[in-house]
């Protein structure tokens, strides 16, 4: 009994210490999306090339929604992956040009190549707020019904594609959406 009394505070200390130690390595930079399993917010905007776009222009199949900007350096890192996906043609990529200028966006696409079916022009960042975006790049996986199923914050490189997107897409395809 007295032994237990002695070890109880020690045990308590160990438990708290382990919890705090693990807390040091928690990822606090990545916010969980509030929009998982919710429909893509409605929009009626123009695309980077100047035509009107709304939800009805979205592909009627599983697609990626990539938030990008001409000012965004990490976007250049993930750009080859998006270009490859677009060339393979298995999954459409829609862009959201976030807090950018139309002329700069057009220049950027001409210089680096355009992997997007179209890019929604969100100069004010208002559509980004509805999506819960807090900085480019972010990539959303949207199903055929226009429901957001997965979000990745920051660079979508080949590793992220292989390890996170491919399994998520396989799961969606298995559901038959």
């Amino acid at each position, binding site marked *: 009994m007295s032994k237990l009394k002695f070890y109880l505070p020690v045990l308590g200390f160990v438990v708290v210490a382990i919890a705090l130690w693990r807390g040091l390595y928690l990822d606090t930079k990545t916010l969980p999306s509030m*929009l998982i399993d919710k429909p893509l917010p409605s929009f009626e905007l123009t695309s980077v090339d100047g035509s009107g776009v709304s939800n009805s222009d979205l592909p009627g199949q599983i697609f990626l929604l990539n938030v990008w900007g001409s000012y965004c350096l990490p976007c250049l890192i993930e750009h080859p992956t998006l270009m490859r996906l677009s060339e393979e043609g298995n999954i459409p990529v829609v862009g959201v040009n976030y807090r950018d200028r139309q002329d700069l966006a057009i220049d950027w696409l001409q210089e680096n190549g355009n992997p997007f079916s179209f890019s929604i022009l969100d100069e004010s960042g208002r559509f980004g*707020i509805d999506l819960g975006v807090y*900085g480019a790049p972010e990539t959303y996986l949207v199903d055929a019904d226009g429901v957001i199923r997965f979000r990745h914050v920051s660079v979508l490189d080949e590793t992220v594609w292989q390890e996170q997107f491919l399994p998520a897409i396989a799961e969606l395809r298995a559901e038959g959406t």
Partner: protein
Amino acid sequence: MSSSGTFVNRKVLLLIAAIVVLLASVLLPTTAHSQVDTFDFDTNEQQDRFRTLSDELRCPMCQNSSLSGSTGGVAEDLRREIHRMIMEDMSDGEIIQFMFERYGDFILFRPRLTGATVLLWFGPLLFLLIGGLFAFRIWRRARQISDSDTQLNKSQQDRLQALLGEKT
């Protein structure tokens, strides 16, 4: 004597000054208003609400600063949204709900009370209770010891007498 007296007074004064500075740094609002954009409001009350809301909502991009203390792009957009919603006569609750629906618990500097945040809200109280319980038990035991040990039994009395007798 008088010189040591003023020395002590100076020490006391220094101590008081230190306490005042410490209290001030804890109690006074320390939020930095680094925002550069300005908004027009119809009433002072609207302006106060704007200030309170942008102090209580966290910038999603910059982690440890409020919307008012951040120059980040998304913080700028969210301040503009708060202004818009205040001018559209939305209540504070509705504005906070708007932010919560998009950015989740993270954006609230004052977390909601849910199953997951119960420990966060009441953890300190729990630790205080545990500490209080231990302190009470130690105090009670200390009192019991002092009560029972001040009485000498018969053989102890005899020995005490013998020791005292040797001396005198």
